[in-house]
């Protein structure tokens, strides 16, 4: 207690110097906490945005191989899929059925390659909140069987206005040429990342263009009530479906990319007839997780580089402190203070600086995060995929904060250790002879 009291009081002897050191540590902690906070919510936000864009947490696609060797995506009869969902007691929120079309849109001599997603918009109510419409509405799209929502960029390129009819040139799922007509019912703001490049239409008309039956579709998306159960639900569904239909094998190898593994099976293995593939959002997110891992590693490197610089400052400061207090150390040793306690006094002082620096840095980071979280950045920015409904979010884990604190404290103590050790080893008589 005595040592702690003296060490704490020593901090006040050179207030400006203590504050500067603390500020340097606080800055380092501030930066690292902001990065950690951002990457902490990165996965969650990207995952949620992806699940909304891709319409589910688990995706099941039917694959058919034609006589010509071409692979088609198609779910002709989803009774087996629904049965599997029921048998595995899958806790779903929405079941989404989508068909995708690659088309060329033509209007007044201009043409544009465009992928169009067809969905039942009565089911995908949630999706309407994810798209920011500039003109028109989803209701208009649902009211017009041949309606389409295009991005503002696509509409501009084709010089389209709401209500304009455009020609659509595409291929049926078997590869035959087909034509049709879309009516522009709404224009969405292009976010340049995901939504803008895709157009949205009613699934019935897309199926018609693809020459699919009204109850057929390309992929089934399952939105779960609890996204944390994606893997276990997917595993249960996969095991159930394996007993009923042919499935592309899901790789259990953690190192292997599950999506690439399935694509490999489709391209390289000999198979015929109908097979199903089951993918999850986590399979896609594993790539994103790698990005997060890279960011976290970069953050850790920044932490070390930043603190390597700060540590030089700490060491120099404590060398100065040692010079200033040499005589005092001699006095304390003369009146009976053991070497170890002298060392401890310096280390406690360094620890207090680290502790106060960390607390200050965390408070500043907390304030900054709070302010940033209040700002609505909108959905029409390229970074919307990283945000939650247009708001930045930050998520810090206690172990991460503690780890940073431990690293910073350890580095500070290490930086202060050498001057402290030198102080402890001073001969009392030599220390007392100094002029300070």
């Amino acid at each position, binding site marked *: 207690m005595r040592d702690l009291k*003296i060490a704490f009081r020593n901090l006040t002897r050179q207030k400006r110097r203590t504050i500067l050191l603390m500020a340097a540590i606080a800055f380092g902690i501030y930066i690292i906490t902001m990065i950690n906070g951002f990457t902490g919510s990165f996965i969650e936000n990207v995952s949620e945005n992806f699940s909304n864009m891709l319409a589910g947490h688990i995706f099941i696609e039917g694959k058919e191989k034609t006589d010509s060797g071409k692979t088609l995506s198609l779910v002709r009869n989803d009774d087996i899929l629904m049965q599997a969902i029921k048998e595995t007691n899958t806790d779903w929120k929405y079941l989404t059925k989508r068909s995708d079309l690659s088309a060329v849109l033509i209007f007044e001599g201009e043409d544009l390659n465009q992928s169009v997603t067809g969905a039942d918009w009565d089911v995908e109510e949630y999706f309407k909140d994810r798209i920011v419409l500039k003109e028109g509405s989803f209701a208009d799209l649902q009211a017009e069987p041949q309606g389409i929502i295009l991005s503002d960029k696509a509409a501009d390129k084709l010089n389209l206005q709401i209500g304009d009819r455009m020609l659509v040139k595409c291929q049926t799922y078997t590869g035959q040429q087909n034509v049709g007509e879309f009516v522009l019912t709404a224009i969405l703001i292009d976010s340049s990342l995901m939504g803008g490049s895709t157009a949205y239409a009613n699934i019935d008309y897309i199926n018609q263009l693809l020459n699919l039956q009204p109850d057929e579709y390309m992929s089934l998306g399952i939105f779960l009530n609890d996204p944390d159960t994606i893997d276990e639900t997917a595993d249960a569904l996969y095991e159930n479906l394996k007993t009923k239909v042919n499935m592309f094998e899901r790789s259990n190898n953690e190192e292997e990319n599950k999506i690439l593994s399935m694509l490999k099976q489709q391209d390289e293995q000999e198979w015929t007839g109908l097979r199903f593939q089951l993918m999850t959002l986590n399979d896609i997110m594993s790539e994103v997780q790698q990005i997060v891992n890279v960011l976290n590693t970069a953050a850790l490197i920044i932490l070390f580089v930043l603190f390597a610089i700060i540590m030089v400052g700490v060491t120099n400061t404590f060398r100065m402190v040692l010079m200033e207090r040499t005589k*005092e150390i001699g*006095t304390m040793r*003369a*009146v*009976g203070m*053991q*070497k170890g306690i002298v060392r401890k006094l310096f280390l406690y002082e360094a620890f207090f600086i680290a502790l106060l620096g960390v607390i200050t840095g965390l408070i500043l980071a907390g304030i900054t995060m709070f302010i940033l979280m209040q700002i609505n950045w909108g959905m029409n920015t390229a970074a919307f995929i990283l945000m939650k409904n247009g708001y930045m979010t930050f998520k810090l884990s206690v172990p991460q904060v503690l780890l940073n604190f431990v690293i910073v404290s350890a580095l500070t103590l290490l930086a202060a250790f050498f001057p402290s050790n030198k102080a402890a080893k001073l001969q009392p*008589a030599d220390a007392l002879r100094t002029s300070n």
Partner: protein
Amino acid sequence: MAIVKLEDVHKTYPLGKTEVHAVKGVSFEINKGDFISIAGPSGSGKSTILNMIGCIDIPTNGKVIINETETSGLSDKQITTLRHEVLGFIFQSFNLIPVLDVYENIEFPLLLGKSKMTKAEKSEWIDMLIEEVQLESWKNHKPNELSGGQRQRVAIARALVTKPEIVLADEPTANLDSVTSDAIIRLMKKINRDLGTTFIFSTHDPTVVDVADHIIRLKDGLISENYRQENPKSFGGAE
């Protein structure tokens, strides 16, 4: 009975490429309860001898025996403990700890080792010392708020707080005016008489030397005189 015994003590300091022989073979004994002055001009080896008696410096050759313990064979930890239990220090420039107030500075050595006193006893003892050095109204002041004489009185109280058998004072009055010096010496003498504490102080001030009942005079690292004084000079009402 000799509480301090030096036997053919030498001390050599390296100074660049040469060596300085600060003490060149000194032997003497100090009895328990003595009020002893080590006198001599600057550079005669007073402080070096005091440092060796105080176990804050080690002799190059010879033996320093404190309380029948030969100090050369002790580890740093044992020497530190010996300093804490047997010795008290008063420095020329007071050497108080600036972040602690008067009470805390006096209490400080008590916190460094095992004490048989209870918390209440400690507090009572420190208050008594503060009263003894007449700093009752300054007990919560920091050293930078005190005069030189007051600081030295704090240093005296600090030196006595562990009830040491020997108090070493290196030029205790060198930084003080004559009136304050007299008061400090008077105080030291009173404590010597009341508590039986052995006081060993170095000085080059002849008026202070005369107060001692045992005088060791040094010149160029050697003892030039070592004698006891039958009628030491008295200060005010101290004697």
